[in-house]
């Protein structure tokens, strides 16, 4: 399976993905990949605007130990249960609802996901062309948050585009 990594265009091509360390990254510090090329393109044109151009790299992986919260019902329910369990503990004991970053930091600092190479997850796309039916979000926007960089077997430049 191929996945797509989007970055702003630089003078030199990158040889591997760049870790996202933003506080609002869904699943914490990780290498993020899109499953659908059109999502990678939309992300490049709308969010990787620093240099006015973006690049998409195509990656393949060795056998991945991924927590699949998109297609595997058991793993999805497991994931929801664990996130809610930790959140409830925080709320009940401290009175504070943890932020997305705090949940991720807590999981990482305590090595909870040390045996997981990554997490496959989905959210809602804001790309107006993602859904061909108005008002019907029938298609998943899927990303892979990869924690184990060593599982990347190939990483090559694939496409260049101009930002909107």
């Amino acid at each position, binding site marked *: 399976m191929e996945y797509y990594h989007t970055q702003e265009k630089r003078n030199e091509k990158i040889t591997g993905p760049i870790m996202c360390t933003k506080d609002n990254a869904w699943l914490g510090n990780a290498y993020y990949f899109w499953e659908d090329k059109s999502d990678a393109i939309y992300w490049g044109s709308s969010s990787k605007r620093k240099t006015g151009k973006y690049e998409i790299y195509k990656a393949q992986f060795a056998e991945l130990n991924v927590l699949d919260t998109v297609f595997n019902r058991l*793993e999805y329910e497991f994931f929801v249960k664990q996130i809610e369990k930790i959140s409830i503990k925080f709320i009940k*004991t401290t009175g504070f609802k943890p932020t997305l970053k705090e949940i991720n930091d807590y999981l990482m600092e305590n090595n909870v996901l040390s045996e997981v190479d990554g997490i496959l997850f989905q959210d809602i796309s804001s790309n107006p062309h993602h859904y061909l039916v108005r008002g019907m979000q029938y298609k998943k926007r899927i990303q892979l948050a990869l924690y184990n960089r060593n599982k990347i077997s190939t990483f090559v430049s694939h496409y260049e585009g101009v930002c909107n």
Partner: protein
Amino acid sequence: MIDLKKIEDKIDILLDKETKASLEEWLLKNRYKNINKLIGKGSFVSLKTEGVQFKSNIAHANYKVSVKESSSVPSNRFAA
């Protein structure tokens, strides 16, 4: 294949050990760390403040007051 039971056990053991004090301390440290990340490294230096004196001459104003009367309704009347 991911061993979900193993991960769940790890989380349960971890959460069982947590107390109000330990979680509050973790939250405080985490937020403190984030603030420091924004500030950067180095020591605090006090700013040297300098007073600025403003002078005004009431007897000889350096501005003009417009006394043009307007026949239109003041804008705040529309609120009624």
